[in-house]
């Protein structure tokens, strides 16, 4: 275990030597759903992002995280595995002059599978559309994203809103 930890630490440190783009980062977000899959209260999302082809602008990103309901006594947290990709990059976007840092609008689509923590069952699947996703190099901020959610158990669709999401690349 100790050796694995040391190897991982060296791997993270050495990543910057070979860096051609951001590889690993974290994400936080806040969701609200109208779906049989979830309670109506707000749900927090935290996770890790792994950039598969850092040198490419449209590189797919693997997302692994957890969905934590506000009322954790009523509803158990869930695990989510997702794949995200940029749709296009707009450098001269409408808010360009509003941001101090160089920015680009990069709408993204993200497909996720959501599983239960406690039992090996597929809870739901979701498609997330992020039209207002702004990238600042090491940071991406998305506001007003929309969800389409499919509940495997109830066999029905629902929707949701992600009020905001922050992705911060660390390595």
């Amino acid at each position, binding site marked *: 275990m100790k050796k694995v930890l040391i190897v991982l630490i060296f791997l993270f440190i050495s990543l910057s030597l070979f860096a051609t783009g951001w590889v690993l980062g974290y994400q936080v977000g806040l969701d609200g*759903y109208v779906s049989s899959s979830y309670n109506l209260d707000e749900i927090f999302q935290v996770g890790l992002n792994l950039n598969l082809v850092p040198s490419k602008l449209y590189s797919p990103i693997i997302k692994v995280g957890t969905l934590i309901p*506000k009322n954790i006594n009523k509803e158990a947290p869930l695990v989510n595995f997702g794949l995200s990709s940029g749709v296009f990059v707009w450098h001269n976007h409408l808010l360009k002059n*509003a941001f*101090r840092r160089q920015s680009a609008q990069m709408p993204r689509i993200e497909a996720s599978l959501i599983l239960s923590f406690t039992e090996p069952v597929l809870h739901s699947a979701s498609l997330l559309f992020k039209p207002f996703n702004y990238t600042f190099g090491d940071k991406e901020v998305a506001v007003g994203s929309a969800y389409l959610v499919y509940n495997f158990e109830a066999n029905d669709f629902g929707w949701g809103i992600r*009020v905001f999401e922050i992705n911060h690349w660390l390595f």
Partner: protein
Amino acid sequence: MRKTVLVVAILLLITPLFASKFALSIGTYDALKSEEGLDAQLGAFYGIGPRWELEGSLITKITPKPFTTMGAKLGVNYSLLGPVYKNEKEVSTYATMYVGAGVMGNFVGSYDVGPYIQITPLSVGGEEFRLRERTLTGGLYYNVIKNSLTFYWSLFSLDFFIK
């Protein structure tokens, strides 16, 4: 709804006149014993001094039924750890805490009004940095109509300072 859109449009149009002490904000909002669902706070800030700012926000239901409740907040905030807005005497601070007070209430879905006090223990960024992130804002709201005290909080807010 139409009025809200109109107010927001006018706000956006006049924004450049107040640049760059002006920020548009989006954040979360929740309160004890509030109705189920997700609420958001859309607001604006205007610096009236190096450490002082005015805050005006609309609080609305996002899910399950968007815009079925609407509240507003109007107040002032004071930066405890240093200046946030540019001035000739001091350098702006990156990380700070805020205390604030003002009046808030609901006018769609239910009607109430009253004073509030709030604290934001961690905020990074500001006018100098064009972006500010405020976390773990908590406050007490005294509902004058119902004669009750409510604890509310905003886990995270993003403020975009306009150039």
